[in-house]
């Protein structure tokens, strides 16, 4: 938590609205909402300076439940609307809440351009690997062979790895957490909030109606230590009960080893600022071949697009003075027609 946090006296309740929360009972969205409501008052940002922009989907109803400025836009377009808001009002803390369909199906293009530009938006992608709101069609993150209403014979397309796509777009901040990991999610949300530039966070989210248990292997209390590879900058890539397992790289291929066998000093050390290809190696690790990286994969510093845009404006005004249209019209080649 940075120093300027916790300077407001806001509480969780300040971020609740009077609207009934209308997700299905048991939906993972509740847990994410709870964590965001917990984190926002801790950020030291006045409530009126938060804006949450969403697309369409169960997840995208999020703004209605947060007592901040909010905009429930149209399907897939939240990054575009949020970019306009942030460019025009750089002092706001602008968050995008989106789903795997909203962000990666119809909205894929806006997402990758937003990440490329590095607009200072915090993007939370609730990945339930299904279209919830439209009642259960497969999504671009559903696994190959998925049987759904629209694929009764099983889907035949490989899913996106959302984090890989983000990295392919040169995102400056890429992270993953889960609805059922409140503590971990809180930390990741704080990190995202502090990042200057696009912060892309994939949140594994259970849709108990149409895709129940999709992330049970990751969040199940019993197995999770063997499945989650919790990332910490500067720390070795270890996991498993008693952190007995670790990752080494044979060239570009990750390999799971027993720490005891190779020695802790030979385990790869996590580096949020390493070359993209390293983060790509992490983002392509999939269960059961590999453990599932959780946490901040990548966090690098590069200028935020909105800052640069606004700097061009303010430096030009500083240099030339604020323009007046009546003068502008009269500059250049003008001539006078005398009264007859």
């Amino acid at each position, binding site marked *: 938590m940075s120093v300027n946090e916790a300077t407001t006296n806001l509480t969780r309740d300040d971020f609740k609205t009077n609207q009934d929360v209308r997700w299905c009972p048991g939906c993972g969205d509740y847990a994410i909402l709870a964590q965001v409501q917990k984190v926002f008052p801790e950020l030291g940002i006045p409530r009126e300076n938060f804006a949450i922009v969403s697309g369409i989907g169960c997840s995208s109803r999020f703004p209605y439940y947060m007592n901040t400025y*909010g905009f429930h836009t149209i399907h897939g377009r939240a990054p*575009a609307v949020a970019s*306009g*808001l*942030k460019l025009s*009002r750089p002092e*706001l803390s602008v968050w995008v809440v989106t789903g795997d369909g909203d962000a990666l199906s119809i909205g894929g293009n806006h997402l990758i351009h937003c990440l490329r530009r590095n607009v200072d938006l915090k993007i939370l992608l609730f990945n339930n690997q299904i279209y919830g709101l439209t009642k259960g069609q497969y999504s671009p993150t559903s696994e190959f062979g998925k049987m759904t209403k629209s694929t009764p014979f099983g889907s035949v397309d490989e899913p996106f790895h959302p984090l890989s796509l983000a990295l392919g777009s040169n995102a400056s901040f890429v992270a993953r957490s889960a609805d059922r990991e409140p503590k971990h999610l809180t930390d990741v949300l704080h990190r995202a909030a502090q990042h200057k530039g696009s912060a892309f966070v994939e949140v594994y989210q259970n849709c108990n109606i149409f895709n129940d248990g999709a992330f049970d292997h990751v969040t199940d209390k019993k197995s999770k230590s063997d499945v989650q590879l919790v990332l910490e900058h500067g720390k070795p890539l270890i996991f498993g009960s008693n952190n007995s397992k670790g990752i080494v790289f044979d060239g570009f291929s990750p390999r799971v080893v027993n720490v005891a066998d190779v020695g802790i000093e030979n385990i790869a050390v996590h580096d949020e600022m390493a070359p993209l290809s390293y983060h790509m190696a992490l983002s392509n690790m999939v269960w059961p071949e590999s453990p599932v990286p959780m946490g901040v994969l990548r966090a690098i510093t590069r200028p935020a697009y909105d800052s640069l845009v606004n700097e061009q404006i303010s430096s030009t*005004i500083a240099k030339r003075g604020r323009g007046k249209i009546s003068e502008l019209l*009269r500059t250049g080649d003008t001539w006078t027609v005398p*009264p007859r």
Partner: protein
Amino acid sequence: MQLTGSQFTSTTALVGNDLATLPDFPAEIRAPAGTLAGVSGFQVQFGSSEIFTPGDRPDVLVAMNPAALKKELGDLARGATIIINSDAFDARSIEKAGFVGDPLEDGTLESFRVFKVPLTTMTHRSLEATSLSKKDKDRSKNFFALGLMYWLYGRPLEHSLRWIERKFAKTPEYAESNSLALKAGYNFGVTTEIFTSNYTVPEASIEPGLYRQITGNQATAFGFIAAAELSGLDLFLGSYPITPASDILHELSRYKHFGVRTFQAEDEIAAIGAALGAAFGGHIGLTTTSGPGVCLKSEAINLAIMVELPLVVANIQRGGPSTGLPTKTEQADLLQALYGRNGESPIPIIAAATPSDCFFAAIEAVRIAVKYMTPVFFLSDGYIANGAEPWKLPEDKDLPTISARFRTEAEGFFPYLRDPATLARPWVRPGTPGLEHRIGGLEKAEKSGNVSYDSFNHEKMVRLRADKIAGIASDIPDAELHGDESGDILLIGWGGTFGALRAATKSMRQAGVKISHLHLRHLNPLPKNVATVIRSFGKICVAELNLGQLLKIIRSEFLVDAIGINKVQGQPFRVSELVERISAILNQDTVGE
């Protein structure tokens, strides 16, 4: 030059234009190239009605070198188009021609439309495959220029291609190179989408005042800057390049010291999305495009209608449907603007009449958007967007006021509480304490703005949105009527055909016809006087560059058997053809479509 000049002349005669020419060449066979004396010129005036002179002040100049430019510059009409062979403008040649500074850079050409084309290089490139010498290749550059002119005026190449074949029958390598260069010049025009320049009919007498030259797209850009200034807010443009709208983006991106933010988005959807986001943030949101881009923006326009935020969607119309004729003008997107979205989605529409009217129409669009909290369509078209005219500069006092007020009082606040006069909801800038609220595309409950699936609320809101837009009718001026208030025939038009319709009306009135011209600048809602005016004439004609779009509205609204005068050729109306068609209608016994 002479060869190519006469080629242009004969092709032009062949396509049926009247014309007059003024060849102008040095006495010497090979005058010292690059000097004023050495300039070989060829002037031609042509047109669809009788032409008596080669013209006093050329509208287009092709300057193959600085000397040619120097020689002709004084004669050019302000706003004329100059096509320059930029390859020939090196420091030495510029000096030789007698220029002090570089005319391409020092503002000399500021009141003209200048196209710098590396004619020599491009000619060479087009002849790469041939075995000619450099010098021989050089010679073909006039044919490259001729090809470009043919494209500019839509003339066919065939005649000249045949002529080249005959003329150079004995030197087939020249035949080939000249043909290639001719085609390459033509294709260059096609490929680079230089927009055909067109000229509005000048008024007979000129008001005194301070003038400048302005194109429609420039005036549009200036208008939006002015509107932002008038409302005390910053302008935010979200745009994706598309012919013929791109120049507005180019122009606006230059004015950072006016607080103008330009966002070249990844597509039209992101462009309008960002503009809407900026409007939510309290900026004047603008998005500029042309027809195919409007298709893509339609879903977001509907969102703007639902969330009731101010936003201007500028459509610089071009020939459709689909990619259509990207560099030609048309007025066929009116019904798209009115109805091109799902559900009942009313939106005000304003269309500019002339290049300079774009300035005022832009301001009017913003005024309505902000006052009524609504997206507004601003329609222009390729003809006025690229056409230029002298413009008497407005004084500050001639400009309307735009009062943009953000609500800050938390007491009694509801996101959809309406101003009883305008039915506008309050505009609140995020960052205002105590007024946090949520908006979105689902139907809103009256007043609270909460999501509502209630049946009666829905009908109420649908009608409220419709009433809000319809109510603007009492806040806009009457439509401009030229001529008597009643008569035999009323000519109705809108948008960039204004000049041609006005000229046709004038000339017919001079000939004694009882005709008046009603120009509609506001297309939705229609000005209040339209109904009365329409009832005061025997026949009603609606002239448009489409198959009859305003016509449909007029017929449906006023139940009059209005007759369409339509043209869909990517070209503006000619005054003569309007006169002809109106006369034919007047002479008809029975009125019918």
